[in-house]
């Protein structure tokens, strides 16, 4: 390779690299706000999906706090908890719980719980369960996940918080054993955590609301 062609090669590579970087930067700059808005809208929308429908018309103020409990919430890192505040009173909590023992990967759930410690809704927001079997936990595919609505730690009693295959009170899914077990366990654990830490969470939310940094609403 002669001196001249080396320079030509280098400048060509440099030029194209700069042009490529410019293109990616421009697309990133143009799309980042839209992507962030999409994600925020989805998360806020999903919060309403798992809250009591009666709250849908209220001007709720969701306040983001965090909770850490590897045994009950499925992650050693803090997970997001939205406390819904209506007229200064906490009315519900939404946990971004993780069911760590999904079939292919941890299942990310949203668990809505009312102040009275009843489940108001559960959704699988991100999972990699087998299509046609485990993915029936997705509300788009089946109503299975709606069976938690209205349940609490006393309904059914703690020993019956399991799938029917394990002599519990919840339906299982044909062909999938691991997935429903993981979800039932995660929902129960979330209830246990909420029951034990309710005051703590509400106080944290009140402090956060007073400081004026509400959740990215």
């Amino acid at each position: 390779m002669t001196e001249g062609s080396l320079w030509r090669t280098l400048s060509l590579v440099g030029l194209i690299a700069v042009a490529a970087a410019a293109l990616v930067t421009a697309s990133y700059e143009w799309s980042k706000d839209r992507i962030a808005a999409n994600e925020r809208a989805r998360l806020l929308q999903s919060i309403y999906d798992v809250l009591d429908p009666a709250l849908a018309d209220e001007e709720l103020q969701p306040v983001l706090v965090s909770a850490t409990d590897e045994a009950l919430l499925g992650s050693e890192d803090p997970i997001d908890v939205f406390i819904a505040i209506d007229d200064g009173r906490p009315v519900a909590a939404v946990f971004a719980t993780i069911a760590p023992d999904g079939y292919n990967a941890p299942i990310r759930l949203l668990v809505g719980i009312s102040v009275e410690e009843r489940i108001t809704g559960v959704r699988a927001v991100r999972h990699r369960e087998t299509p046609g079997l485990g993915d029936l936990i997705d509300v788009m595919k089946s109503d299975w996940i709606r069976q938690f609505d209205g349940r609490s730690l006393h309904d059914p009693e703690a020993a019956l918080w399991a799938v029917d295959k394990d002599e519990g009170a919840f339906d299982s899914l044909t062909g999938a054993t691991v997935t429903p077990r993981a979800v039932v366990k995660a929902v129960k654990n979330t209830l246990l955590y909420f029951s034990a830490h309710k005051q703590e969470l509400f106080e944290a939310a009140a402090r956060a609301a007073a400081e004026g940094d509400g959740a990215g609403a």
Partner: protein
Amino acid sequence: MSELKSLLVQGLWRDNPALVQLLGLCPLLAVTTTVVNGLTLGVATAVVLLATNTLVSLMRRSLVPAVRIPLFVLIIASLVTSVDLLTNALLFELHEILGIFIPLIITNCAILAQAETVASRQPVGRAAFAGFSAGLGFCGVLVVLGALREVFGAGTLFAGMSLLFGDIAAAWRIDLPFDGMLAAVLPPGAFFGLAVLLALRNWARERRAAARGGAALPVGDAGA
């Protein structure tokens, strides 16, 4: 005109990237569970093909052979990253479903093959049109395979088109009077479906060759 037509036939049928060259099979097999998934990935791939061919052809005279492959990859990668960001911003829900497969367009050998064998040797117009017709051919196979698997796997057709075309498209959904077979949606169904399409194409080709009186042409070149 006839040249355009022959380029179109080449991309759609004679050298179809998916059915003849067997390139880009990873995304092809992975996303084609429904028509809408296939169509979206197909359109994204076609856009990248068209843009890559145009850019590569524009700079074909200043290309240095020793670094052409890295440059092709750089161009393809930056285009795909932009397409990925734009779909994420504009078609958020579909982007969630297609997930990793839009970034994986970068690894679709059909695009690199077009850049190397067509775009770097042809004038811009021809290269762009060849990229367009190859993209159309690839997209067509994705849609047909998606339709096959959706019909046999889920018993529906055009479900979820509203993700792409807005609320009017919700009415396009057709529910067929049977439930699907799970196997068609799972990975084996992708291989069976593609095998059926390949067999049909080869059968049609042999029939035509036989009708012309000649011996059957050798079918399809195996590709990576």
